[in-house]
C-alpha cells in the first residue's frame, strides 16, 4: 500500500516546510481571495435581508440570471458531444495535423475574451463570413441567445476536451475488447461500456466549462445584443448597476451568482466524486 497523502502525525512532519508553505498559501489566499470576497458579501449585506431579496428577485435580475445560466448550460451541454468528438479523434486516430489541432484546443483559453467576442461577432453578424449564409437560411446568431451560446461554447470547449483526453488515453482497449468478446456490437460497446466510463470526466469537464462560462463577460457583451429579458446576462447587469451607482445592488447580484455557481460546482464535484469513487480500481 502506498502511504501517501493521508498521513496524520501528531508531533512532527518528517518532510519540512509545512508551516512555511501552508502559512504562505493561507495568507495569500486570504489576501487575494477571501478578504475581497468578504467585502463583497458585507456590501450585499448592507441591503438587509429584505433589500437583498428584493434586489435579486426583481424580474430583470431573475431574467438575466436565467439567461446566464441557461446559455451557459446550453453551451456546456453542446460542448459535451463536440468535446467528446474532438478528444476521441485526438486520442484514437493518427490524424495528420493532430499536433496542430491539439495545440489549437487551448486557443479560447489563451485568446483574450474581448478579442474572441469581437471576432465572433464579426464572423456571425448578418454580414459576416458565417452570418451571411446563415442569415440567408433564416438563422440569426449574433444578437440572439444563440450568439451567446456560440461564444460560450467557444470559451468552454477546452475544458471539456482537456478533461476527457487523459481519461480516454488511460482507458485502454481492454474493456472494449472484453465487451466485444462477450458478443456486444460496436454500438452497444460504445453506449454501454465506453461512454459510462467517461461519465466522471465528462461531468467534470462540463462543470468546469459551466463554472467558467456562467460568469463570462468579455466575449459575450459584444455578441449578445444585451436586450433585457432576452439576451442580457447577469454580469452585464452587475456592470449596469454599477453605472447607476448601485453598489449594494451590484454586490447582491454578484453574491447571488456566486452562491449559484459555487452550489453548482459543489454539487457537480460531489456527483463526480461519487461517480469516480465507484469506478476507481
Amino acid at each position, binding site marked *: 500500500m502506498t502511504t501517501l497523502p493521508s498521513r496524520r502525525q501528531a508531533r512532527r512532519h518528517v518532510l519540512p516546510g509545512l508551516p512555511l508553505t501552508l502559512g504562505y498559501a493561507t495568507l495569500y489566499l486570504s489576501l487575494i481571495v477571501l478578504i475581497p470576497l468578504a467585502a463583497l458579501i458585507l456590501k450585499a449585506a448592507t441591503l438587509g435581508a429584505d433589500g437583498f431579496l428584493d434586489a435579486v428577485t426583481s424580474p430583470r435580475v431573475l431574467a438575466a440570471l436565467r439567461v446566464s445560466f441557461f446559455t451557459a448550460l446550453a453551451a456546456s451541454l453542446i460542448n459535451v458531444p463536440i468535446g467528446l468528438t474532438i478528444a476521441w479523434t485526438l486520442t484514437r486516430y493518427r490524424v495528420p495535423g493532430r499536433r496542430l489541432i491539439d495545440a489549437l484546443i487551448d486557443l479560447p483559453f489563451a485568446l483574450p475574451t474581448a478579442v474572441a467576442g469581437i471576432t465572433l461577432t464579426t464572423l456571425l453578424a448578418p454580414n459576416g463570413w458565417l452570418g451571411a449564409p446563415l442569415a440567408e437560411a433564416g438563422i440569426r446568431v449574433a444578437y440572439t441567445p444563440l450568439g451567446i451560446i456560440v461564444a460560450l461554447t467557444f470559451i468552454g470547449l477546452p475544458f471539456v476536451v482537456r478533461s476527457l483526453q487523459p481519461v480516454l488515453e488511460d482507458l485502454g482497449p*481492454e*474493456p472494449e*475488447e*472484453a*465487451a*466485444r*468478446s*462477450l*458478443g*456486444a*456490437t460496436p454500438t*452497444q460497446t460504445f453506449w*454501454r*461500456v465506453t461512454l*459510462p*466510463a467517461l*461519465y466522471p470526466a465528462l461531468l467534470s469537464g462540463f462543470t468546469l466549462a459551466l463554472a467558467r462560462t456562467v460568469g463570462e463577460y468579455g466575449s459575450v457583451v459584444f455578441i449578445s445584443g444585451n436586450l433585457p429579458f432576452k439576451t442580457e446576462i447577469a454580469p452585464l447587469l452587475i456592470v449596469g448597476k454599477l453605472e447607476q451607482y448601485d453598489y449594494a445592488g451590484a454586490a447582491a447580484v454578484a453574491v447571488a451568482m456566486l452562491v449559484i455557481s459555487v452550489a453548482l460546482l459543489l454539487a457537480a464535484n460531489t456527483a463526480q466524486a461519487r*461517480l469516480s*469513487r*465507484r*469506478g*476507481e*480500481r
Partner: protein
Amino acid sequence: MSIDVTQIGKQFGTFTALSDVTLHVPDGQLVALLGPSGSGKTTLLRVIAGLETPDTGRVHLAGQDVTHAGPGERGIGFVFQHYALFKHMTVFENVAFGLKVKRGAARPTAATIREKVMRLLSLVQLDWAAARYPSQLSGGQRQRVALARALAVEPRVLLLDEPFGALDAAVRQELRDWLRQLHNELHVTSVFVTHDQEEALEIADRIVVFNAGRIEQEGTPGDVYHHPASAFTYRFLGRANVWQTDAREQTLVRPHDLHLSPEPAPGAVPAQIVRVHQVGPTARLELSRAGDLPSLEAHLPARDVQAFQVGQQVYVSPTAQQTYSVTSS
C-alpha cells in the same frame, strides 16, 4: 470444443510477434502457454479470440474455420490479464453484460438472466458481492468476477491471459487450486497464459513453451519438465547448474540431481561447501569448484544434510543431466 491453430504468423510493423505457430488443443483440455515476457503468448491468445487478425494462417474452433469471424461470434470467453472489469457496473451487471447485449430471441428474460448470474456468482463464491463495484473487491475476487463474466455466455472455449499475474503468492495458490477444480467440473476447453513455470507445471494438462514468437516445445508437464528439448526450455523450467561447458556443448544439471559424498567416487568432482541453508524439507548447498568452473547449487533432502558442513570438501556427481549443443540455447 477443440482449437486448431495452423501456421499463424503475425507481424507488428517489422517485429515478428508470431511465426508459423501450429497448435492443436483437444476438447476439454487445460493448456498452459508458458514463456518469457514478449514471446508472443498474449498475441496468440488474442488471435484465437479474434481480437487480433493473423497475417497468415487459420484458426479453427471445433473444426470450423473462424479466421474471419468477429470476437463476438466465436463463442469464446476471454479473461484479461488485468481483469478489464467494467468499473461503472456492479459485479452483477458485469456478469450479466454478455447476456444483456444479446439481440432478439437470443436474449434471455430478466428473470433467467438474474438466476443464471447468481448461479455463476455462487460458483465463484461471490454471490454475497453481487451489488458491489469492482473497486470494492480484492484482486483475487476481481479475478473470479472476470471468470464468471466470461463463463456467463457459455463459451465453448475459455481463454485466460495471466489470470493470476497481479496477485500475491497466497491468493495465487488458492486461485490456482480453484481454477483446476473448476475446470474439472465444467470441462470447458481452456488455454491460459503464464510466465510462471511452477503454475504451468502444477495445473495444466499440457504445456506449450514459447520463445520469441515460436513454439519451443509442447507436451505434458512431465514430458516438458523431464525431457526439455532445448537448453532454453531446461533453464526456463527450473534452476539449472552448468555442469560443464565447452565451445560446442553444455551440460546442465538440476540442483536436486546433484549427488554429494564425503569420499571420492568415480565420476565425482571435488568441491567445497560455501554455504548451507536448510529450510523445510530441502537443504540448499552452495558449492565452489576448483578452477573457473561455475559454482553449483545443490538441493538435498533435509535429513541427508547432517553429514555436511560449511568448509568441508565433498565430491559431487550428477544423477541426471542434459547436454545441449551451444548454438541451440
